[in-house]
């Protein structure tokens, strides 16, 4: 007998090209059948009018553990993930201490096992202590379970270090995730332009992102590495990526909800909830990032969920830290930015939240093919709901979408064949 039978949903599996109203059967933690299933199951989910897809994957989440457990923990991040329809999240390594060795990677994996909600896949640092000087022990971290490497929060400033990192990670077959920002040009608080000038705050111009991306693409041509661009925020970067992909380079990229929905105009009232890195850009950049996602230049959607305490976000704009949270409402935000605007249909959106991010980190996830791990998300594409920052499962409240009306919500999240969230 099957453990779970999901009946009569619109089953969308971009990995196999499937888009049909049918059933999905799960047994012993695996997908056993996709198609009209007869017979009994211990649990039956009626998915009429719902979308059934592989579990959503967010490859850019700050879990803050170890070090800042007052802002988020692996447990609360995983709870936020399943509430947002995500069965897999990648934990960024800019913790305290950073995830820059085998023991730190093992710690995250053990904590995630104890929590037993979403899969939490650790990302290790590219360089020791994220200092951009010496390579971290990537091979040992990979053996311990690191799925990628990143100094996220900062780009790897030294060209020589980045070149070595690409060579070395290329040998391991593990992707490097780069936060593209030239540090010399990055010492501001929001996007350069009329808003920053009027506010009297130093800006972070688009050139700083493009300079590092351009450099990395030149290095990538000379290595066998896999390279992924985090949180693409500028029209210029989208253009560079489009050219690089046309030239056959092994590059993937992600876009965040905020770079698809918000502009620097939101910062004008000095509310630090809108302070994020890379910063909110212009309306033209938002349009370019949307177009990049639509045409596949940007393969993945990722939240860059970055929790911060109320104390930290109650400071002056220039003193507050960068970052905003969106893990639980990400799906509705992407739908608003990409489906409501007719940039994508549901299969297109789901590809960018399942199989594409799985491929970017080289994992065999993100599909409903029989035999695959039973990570499944059921979505009600018509459900209208209101974001309530005060009620999120995340430990922090720095959510700029508080009060937003969204359409589209996960109603069941199944990880390893077990229902972890139902609404």
């Amino acid at each position, binding site marked *: 007998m099957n453990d779970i039978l999901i009946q009569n949903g619109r089953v969308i599996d971009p990995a196999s090209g499937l888009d049909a109203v049918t059933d999905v059967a799960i047994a012993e933690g695996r997908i056993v059948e996709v198609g009209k299933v007869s017979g009994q199951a211990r649990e039956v989910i009626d998915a009429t009018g719902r979308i059934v897809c592989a579990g959503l994957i967010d490859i850019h989440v700050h879990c803050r553990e170890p070090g800042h457990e007052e802002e988020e923990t692996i447990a609360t991040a995983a709870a936020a993930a399943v509430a947002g329809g995500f069965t897999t999240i990648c934990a960024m390594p800019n913790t305290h201490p950073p995830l820059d060795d085998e023991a730190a990677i093992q710690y995250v994996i053990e904590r995630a096992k104890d929590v037993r909600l979403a899969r939490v896949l650790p990302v290790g640092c590219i360089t020791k202590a994220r200092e951009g000087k010496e390579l971290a022990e990537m091979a040992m971290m990979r053996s311990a379970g690191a799925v990628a490497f990143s100094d996220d929060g900062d780009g790897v400033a030294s060209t020589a270090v980045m070149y070595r990192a690409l060579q070395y990670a290329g040998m391991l077959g593990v992707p490097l995730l780069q936060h593209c920002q030239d540090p010399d040009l990055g010492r501001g608080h929001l996007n*350069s332009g009329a808003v*920053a*000038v*009027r*506010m*009297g705050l130093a800006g972070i111009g688009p050139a700083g992102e493009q300079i590092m991306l351009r450099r990395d693409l030149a290095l990538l041509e000379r290595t066998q590495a896999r390279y992924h661009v985090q949180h693409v925020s500028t029209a210029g970067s989208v253009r560079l990526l489009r050219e690089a992909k046309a030239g056959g380079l092994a590059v993937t990229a992600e876009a965040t909800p905020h770079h698809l929905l918000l502009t620097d105009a939101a910062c004008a*009232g000095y509310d630090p909830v809108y302070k994020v890195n890379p910063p909110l850009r212009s309306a033209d950049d938002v349009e370019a990032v949307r177009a990049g996602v639509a045409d596949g230049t940007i393969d993945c959607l990722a939240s860059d969920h970055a929790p911060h305490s109320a104390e930290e976000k109650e400071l*002056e704009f220039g003193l507050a830290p960068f970052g905003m949270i969106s893990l639980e409402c990400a799906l509705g935000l992407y739908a608003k930015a990409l489906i409501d605007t007719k940039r994508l249909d549901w299969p297109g959106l789901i590809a960018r939240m399942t199989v594409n991010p799985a491929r970017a980190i080289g994992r065999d996830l993100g599909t409903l093919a029989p035999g695959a791990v039973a990570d499944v998300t059921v979505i009600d594409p018509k459900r209208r709901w209101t974001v309530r920052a005060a009620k999120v499962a995340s430990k922090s409240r720095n959510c700029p979408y508080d009060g937003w009306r969204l359409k589209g919500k996960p109603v069941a999240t199944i990880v390893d064949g077990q229902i972890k969230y139902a609404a």
Partner: protein
Amino acid sequence: MTAPRHFVWKRKHLVGLDELTAGEIAHVLDTAESFREVSTRSIKKVPALRGKVVALLFFEDSTRTRMSFELAASRLSADTVLLTAKGSSVAKGETTLDTVRNIEAMGVDIFVIRHGQSGAPHMLAGKVRGSIVNAGDGQHEHPTQALLDIFTVRQRLGAVAGLKVAIVGDIAHSRVARSNIIGLRKLGAEVVVVGPPTLVPSAITAMGCEISHSLDDVLGEVDVVNMLRIQFERFGSNLFPSVREYSRIYGLNAERLGRCRKDVLVMHPGPINRGVELTSEVADGPNSCILQQVTNGLAVRMAVLYLVSQAGP
């Protein structure tokens, strides 16, 4: 004191000129006009703020703005308390908001705030019960400086609308420039900002001003030249190669003044670097109104403290 022109002032805070309408700016100036006379009396005091407490919170150093506000408050018969960043709880790691809330708990009606962070008064305005008066926030606004500048222009040239004003120097990092641009544009003056591109962001044109990189090009066509102070601490950040070169291109000397309109008004928010922005001959000459600006600052700040204290809760 009665305010002129039956205008009902409703603002509890003065955080910037950006928030004010042209009518409100004119009302502050008119009110200042009526307070100017107080300073000429033998007993330089009116009871307008008797029993009120004005806290002067100077998180960033200042001499003349602080003294000007202190004197303005005392001429209105308010009690004042002063906080300076050095030796205060700020140095012990207290946040701005906590510092202000603690002082408010002692019973303060008006907070005059100078702060190094742009937007600090905006943040506080929504979170305290008293009035917030911005005495300069980071590189954002310095509304009372612009009001006293505009007051002085109006006093010397009769009106503001239709004038062309050059603001010269480090526009990028200047709160005086921003408030002046906003206020002058609202009152119908044209503004041209002058300096090298490293000190004049191109996006400043969104505030309604023109940009020129040549002082010599604009001198002949302006009614007012407001020379900003060059901050030597910026030196070394490659914003300009040397003070000598800056002064050569953007300094106002007698020869350049000779190419201006005869009645051109020369302003400077102070403190002056003599021989850099202005030669002594120009700073102390008949076209200069620098000391008049300081005198007017008192009347303008009296007007601001008086008006915000009159607004409802």
